[in-house]
């Protein structure tokens, strides 16, 4: 039990996907313009990452390891994640159209999100079992969402500031992201 809590704490705060591992910077900058879309994207990532970590963990343990094909994990995971996103998209479209519309374009975008693949590959690297993998995927995605929402708030404030002309847009966003990353590095002093 404590181990699961440690994995969650580690994935959400200490080794935050965006602020300390620098995964998924592209959607991070792309959809943090307003808090509503950030939350939408965050929930899409939580859903996809949890499911894909479960699926990739199963495939890795029961298929790739058995045949000694660990080196194929990247390719296999890409295929699995891409099809899973498709599948989830179809399910949502049919069963929960309101959620489908809320997630909108972000769901297919996640197909090529490196954070999702990164979580699956990190699970392999750390030799996590099935349950730990799912927990890690879920909490890494929560960390991603946290970063996205925090940053959306920061950007909303930047919008009202008189930023020097040469810094407007992505440049000031990256500077702000760097400052938040520095703040997050404070969590690394928590020893677990």
């Amino acid at each position: 039990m404590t181990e699961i809590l440690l994995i969650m704490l580690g994935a959400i705060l200490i080794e935050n996907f965006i602020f300390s591992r620098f995964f998924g910077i592209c959607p991070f900058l792309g959809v943090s313009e307003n808090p509503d879309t950030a939350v939408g994207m965050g929930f899409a990532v939580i859903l996809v990452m949890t499911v894909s970590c479960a699926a990739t963990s199963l495939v890795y343990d029961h298929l790739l390891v058995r045949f000694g094909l660990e080196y194929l994990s990247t390719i296999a995971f890409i295929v699995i994640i891409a099809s899973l996103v498709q599948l989830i998209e179809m399910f949502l479209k049919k069963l929960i159209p309101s959620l489908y519309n809320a997630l909108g374009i972000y769901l297919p975008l996640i197909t090529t999100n490196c954070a999702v693949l990164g979580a699956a590959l990190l699970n392999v690297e750390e030799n996590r079992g099935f349950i730990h993998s799912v927990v890690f995927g879920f909490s890494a995605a929560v960390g991603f969402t946290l970063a996205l929402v925090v940053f959306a708030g920061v950007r909303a404030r930047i919008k009202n500031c008189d930023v020097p002309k040469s810094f407007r847009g992505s440049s000031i966003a990256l500077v702000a992201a760097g400052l938040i990353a520095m703040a997050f590095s404070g969590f690394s002093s928590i020893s677990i």
Partner: protein
Amino acid sequence: MGSILTAVAVLAAIGAVLGILLAVAARLLTVKTDERVEKIISLLPGANCGGCGYAGCSALAEAIAKGDASTAACKAGGPDCAAAIALVMGKAPEKAVRMRAQVMCSGVRGEAKLKYDYSGLEDCRAAIRSGGGDKVCPNGCIGHGTCAAACAFGAISVVNGVAAVEYSKCVGCGMCASACPKGIIKMIPFEARYWVGCSSVDKGQLTRSYCEKGCISCKICEKNCPSGAITVYDGVAHIDYEKCTECGICYEKCPRHIIIKGN
């Protein structure tokens, strides 16, 4: 060898299982979409040219069905398509003037002077990085076919160093006009018979020094136009097609023969 075969077999198996899963899911989870969307998609040209400003024909169809876009939003389809879509939507057809693209330059090889020999990438956007292209004229067509590549209908070809539009194929989507880095492709009414084959903004004397064809802004056309449709500004004559009666006087009077009769 054996390990390669297992690798292939395992990956193929994963792919096959996922593929079948997706196929079954697609069958089971089909969602009834708005019937009008399907109908509108079948009416649209399907070239996905993007001239309407939407991501493609299906995106436009959805927007039309929702009422976000005008039934005449597809310029490529022309008035017939607009009328058919209006019928599907149960609205009165909106009037749409069919347009065509016109390259406003006549400075073919030999007529327009060159600054240097360009032998780089065959792309106008790349070519203008080298001092604005090889033509001395800052607003001449440099003829590397960026517009031709942007055209989804194969209506543009580069002839003698200047892009030429094949009118019968042009649907007026305007993608070439936005692709041209010199901005010298203009959209004019499809039926227009006269057009000014020059975009030079330089003074007449300067234009004359580097191009045998270019408009020298002598204003003879402006003075002779009975309907006041021509104005000369920014170093070149402009025809207002709303006023033009196609009398052809400008075409006959132009000393440089830069008002061209076509179509």
